[in-house]
């Protein structure tokens, strides 16, 4: 059993207007078959209108241990949120 089909990650657009979302993965010999298999495995009940597949080995991911250093800079910038600013009610909708 050495000749295992590669692993593909499957992304599906639920309905028009939303972006593709990760649905799961599957094995297939090539991209064409991966899309056909994704149709059978992940859209048996009209879950999607568009399928993307990408070979899992081509995905780069951030390391969980980097969580602190990666996100800390934005955590510290609270002024990026509108609620940081106190605007008097008299000003009206803003």
């Amino acid at each position, binding site marked *: 059993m050495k000749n*295992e089909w590669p692993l593909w990650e499957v992304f599906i657009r639920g309905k028009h207007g939303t972006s593709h979302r990760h649905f799961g993965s*599957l094995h297939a*010999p090539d991209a064409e*078959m991966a899309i056909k298999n994704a149709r059978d*495995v992940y859209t*048996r009940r009209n879950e999607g209108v568009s399928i993307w597949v990408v070979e899992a080995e081509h995905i780069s991911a951030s*390391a969980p241990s980097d969580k602190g250093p990666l996100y800390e800079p934005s955590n510290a910038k609270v002024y990026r949120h509108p609620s940081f600013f106190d605007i008097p009610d008299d000003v009206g909708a803003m």
Partner: protein
Amino acid sequence: MYAQVVESTGKSVKSPEEMSEKERAFQARIDAGEKIEPKDWMPDDYRKTLIRQIGQHAHSEVVGQLPEGNWITRAPTLERKAILLAKVQDEAGHGLYLYCAAETLGVSRDDLTEQLLSGRMKYSSIFNYPTLTWADMGAVGWLVDGAAIMNQVPLQRTSFGPYSRAMIRVCKEESFHQRQGYDIMMKMANGTPAQKAMAQDALNRLWYPSLMMFGPSDKNSVHSAQSMAWKIKIDSNDGLRQRFVDQTVPQAEYLGLTIPDDNLRLDEETGHYEFSQPDWSEFNDVLRGNGPCNTERLNARNKAWNDGAWVRDGLMAHAAKKAAAKIAAE
């Protein structure tokens, strides 16, 4: 359940003092209801136990297609045939969702397949019983998928992210399975006396094997205690079994069928049914490989795998040829 006897490390649950700092932080995340994702640090035993559990669960979905596949060509109407086909196809999908979840833990699909085919990994005992009549298609959907739902609904909250997400997809599809089974039972129970007798016979044969699906009592099991602390097991086997009986007895009454248990009675005070335990020696025997269909099921899986080898290899060769041609053209 679909993973009835998952052997963990056999060690009892560690107290916070016995844990390393990493283990303590890990347990704290689980206690806080956080999901563990594949690349996060996890104790080796958590990983090993999960691979066994999710692997058994996946194998059960796949082998579970065989008893129902047995009736696809002989379904009584074209509509029933299409419904059964869709149901069995769903089970194949469930197997695939689960294999993918297991693979995120670092085991390969072929490795899992090989362990099933060689008999080193188990699948649920229920699928080693034969499906003798069409009424069995009703009883399997009603009881077997019913028991599966009872187990899988709480597992949606399991601590391992990929397993939890697979369970959410599975649960969305299961209710169709149980309903189509009960629908068959209603037709047969309200049919001719011979049809009703066939429905009763299916219930008689599948009742105790269905109760076995929840696994032996885990009151004193070390495996269960650790799995519960890790939230990869949510309810006790006995608790789920009781819930199943409480839900199913009134459904049998509605059909006008009798649960094959002389000791069955409703305890007015607790609101729960008292019932007889299945024969646990039979259960152990089936797990050991001596059930009525163990050999047949494993032979069928091995044959499917071996007969499909030329297709798998051929498609890989074709993909390699196409990729080479593309590079040459560039």
